[in-house]
């Protein structure tokens, strides 16, 4: 337990950051935002999943993936396929020439469900697929790349190419996976209407809890021996290799973990927004995810979440207020962050945060004249 507190949660300051985050997303947002805005925040939080995954992969592992959208998309599509099958019951699709198959298949003259859709009639299979399919995919890419010691810029380019390939594949196979329109019009989950306000609140909380869990999992990884190796690999890969470690295995592992995190975000996105489309798979969303991570601070799991929130808040607010000019304002925001806060939001906290904690401590000494021995000890440490 002590190990958990000191190491995993990062002691007092780490725990404070975690608790503040939990309070903000679990209490403050639901309290102060109406259901429309809350649902939007829920959507932003799903983007935080790939952002957190990039902290592990890029910030600590030094592996820049410009293709996290691929995994976000795989998770999202898996969930969308299940929901689409449920929405395409023969009664709902009676107007089609072949009732009982998704509408876009009917438009493309398909007359029966393709084989790879069939397992998605099971919810259990879908949940497993959300995790396993991206992991296998990441394993194949990782094994192919890292075993051959492909890294750095080359790896970034290859992940980007994979994002393009997958987009082209989805767009081209519109009879099978919905093409450029994506998979739309998802309504129920086991007969439960997912478009109601009630469902949206529930999904919001599920999203928050899963996000907090992956932050803890991320910290568990980073504080383990593996986490130290990850940092070592980032800074001096050869030295780790000469010490007898198989670097590629570690890289593959962290790449798979990052892919699973992103995929969970994608699945939650589908549930909250009600559709999935290739516009989340390609280069632009993948790079946006890197931006969330960079703005939040690429060495901070929690910072990445604030990064995703800030950028998406900015997007919504600017585009609602200045529909013609908002892209320039977003550009200005990126430039400002990179120029003035190269370590992102987390950097701001680390630089200026102690002013706040100091002030809090002062207040404490005023109100609680005698600090308990335990606290005194900690302050020393």
């Amino acid at each position, binding site marked *: 337990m002590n190990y958990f507190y000191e190491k995993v949660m990062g002691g007092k300051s780490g725990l404070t950051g975690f608790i503040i985050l939990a309070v903000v997303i679990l209490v403050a947002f639901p309290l102060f935002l109406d259901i429309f805005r809350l649902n939007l925040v829920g959507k932003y939080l799903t983007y935080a999943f790939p952002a957190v995954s990039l902290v592990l992969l890029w910030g600590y592992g030094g592996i820049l993936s410009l293709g996290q959208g691929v995994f976000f998309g795989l998770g999202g599509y898996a969930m969308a396929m299940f929901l689409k099958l449920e929405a395409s019951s023969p009664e709902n699709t009676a107007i089609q020439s072949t009732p009982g198959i998704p509408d876009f298949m009917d438009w493309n003259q398909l007359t029966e469900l393709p084989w790879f859709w069939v397992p998605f009639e099971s919810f259990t299979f879908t949940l497993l697929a959300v995790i396993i399919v991206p992991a296998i995919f990441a394993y194949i890419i990782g094994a192919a790349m890292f075993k051959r010691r492909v890294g750095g810029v080359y790896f970034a380019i290859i992940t980007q190419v994979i994002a393009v390939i997958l987009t082209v594949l989805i767009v081209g196979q519109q009879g099978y996976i919905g093409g450029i329109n994506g998979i739309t*019009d998802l309504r129920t989950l086991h007969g439960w209407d997912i478009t109601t306000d009630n469902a949206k609140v529930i999904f919001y909380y599920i999203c928050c809890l899963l996000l907090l869990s992956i932050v803890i999992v991320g910290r568990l990884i980073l504080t383990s021996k593996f986490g130290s190796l990850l940092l070592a690999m980032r800074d001096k890969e050869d030295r780790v290799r000469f010490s007898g470690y198989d670097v590629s295995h570690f890289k593959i592992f962290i790449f798979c973990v990052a892919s699973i995190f992103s995929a969970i975000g994608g699945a939650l996105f589908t549930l909250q927004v009600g559709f999935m489309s290739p516009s989340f798979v390609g280069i632009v969303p993948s790079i946006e995810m890197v931006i969330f991570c960079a703005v939040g601070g690429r060495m901070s799991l929690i910072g990445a979440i604030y990064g995703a929130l800030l950028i998406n808040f900015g997007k919504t607010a600017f585009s609602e207020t200045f529909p013609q000019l908002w892209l320039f304002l977003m550009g200005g925001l990126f430039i400002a962050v990179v120029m003035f806060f190269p370590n992102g939001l987390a950097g701001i906290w680390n630089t200026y945060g102690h002013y706040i904690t100091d002030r809090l401590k002062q207040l404490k000494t005023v109100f609680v004249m005698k600090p308990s021995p335990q606290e005194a000890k900690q302050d020393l440490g």
Partner: protein
Amino acid sequence: MKLKQHASKRTFMKNAACAVVLGLFTMASSQVTAEVNTTGLAVTDDTVTVGILHSLTGTMAISETGAQEAEKLAIKQINEMGGILGRKIKIIQEDGASDWPTFAEKSRKLLVKDKVAAVFGCWTSASRKAALPVFEKENGLLYYPTFYEGLEQSKNVIYTGQEATQQIIDGLNWVAKEKKAKTFYLIGSDYIWPRTSMKIARKHIENVLGGKVVGEEYKPLGNTQFGSVINKIRLKKPDVIYAAVVGGSNVAWFKQLKAAGITSKKQTLLTISVTEDEVLGIGGENLEGFYSIMKYFQSQDNPNNKAFVKAFKEMWGEDSVIGDVTQAAYLGPWLWKAAVEKAGSFDIDKVVAASEKGDIELTTAPEGYVKLHPNHHLWSKARVGRWNKDGQATVVYTSELIEPDPFPKGYQ
């Protein structure tokens, strides 16, 4: 701009208002608002709020700009005539950013937060498909301006562009008759609209015209390499190239055709995806003599269109061009006005019910005359235009008024 049923409805409203004023002198205005808006839409005693939702940024901005300009023009003109049910129209504009999920998000914002009485917007099929569930869930009303693939009829959407059969069939009949065409080469961008359109075209060519499709090819959106297709076309020597290449790809497509020596002198080309807006990018000299099938061309010679073109240029600049979708977008606010006045209410359900009666017509539409079918689409004419060097088309054929049929039997 006057609508047929407008006058009588107006008198009726006046009478009604008078009665209310006589009866409850002090509460008159508030009561009227309570009557015309029972579902909490953004309607006050002297304003009604609507939304405009098009891409102002991103790749689609170039196509969608004309549509939102036309909608603003129509709304301005309606306001100058005194508004709708005595209320001036206020606009809330949102940017779809060429991104389908954004269309869904902004639709929800317009319907849930702003409570707009109608939305004029969307352009691509993908953006409509993304926004549609939101409109159905929140019971909003969308006026959608683009010619599209059909196979859809939502209670919450009025389609002011043509569905695929309206655009395609008469044009094919024309080319078969005038050009004695027997063999066709089909080429399109790879998504739902070109594919559905080509499916309908193929069935019509093979089953009705007794012709032959000698090739069918799809290229990804944004593709700029047409060399291999052009080689195949040379090999097959079709009587007609039938094209549905969309957006920026058109520039490469027509320039490469010209570079390969395929011009209107030797080859008939019929496209269903080029309007004046695209020609601006392609350059009139690159497709001089080729044909487009549309329901509207800027050069149409009738008093309605002349007034429309003049007003449009006054508002948006002398250089602006008006394509098919821009004109269809212009119809949206007028059709909504007619339906609201017919219903005597802004309530979505009542406006939809009034629209479904099948007797809302615009005699003053720039394209001529249109009438709203109970299936939410417009009766309209198909026209074939031959492109000139200056980027304008000469209308060489006009069909009869065609009934919209979004679920065509025998073409699926």
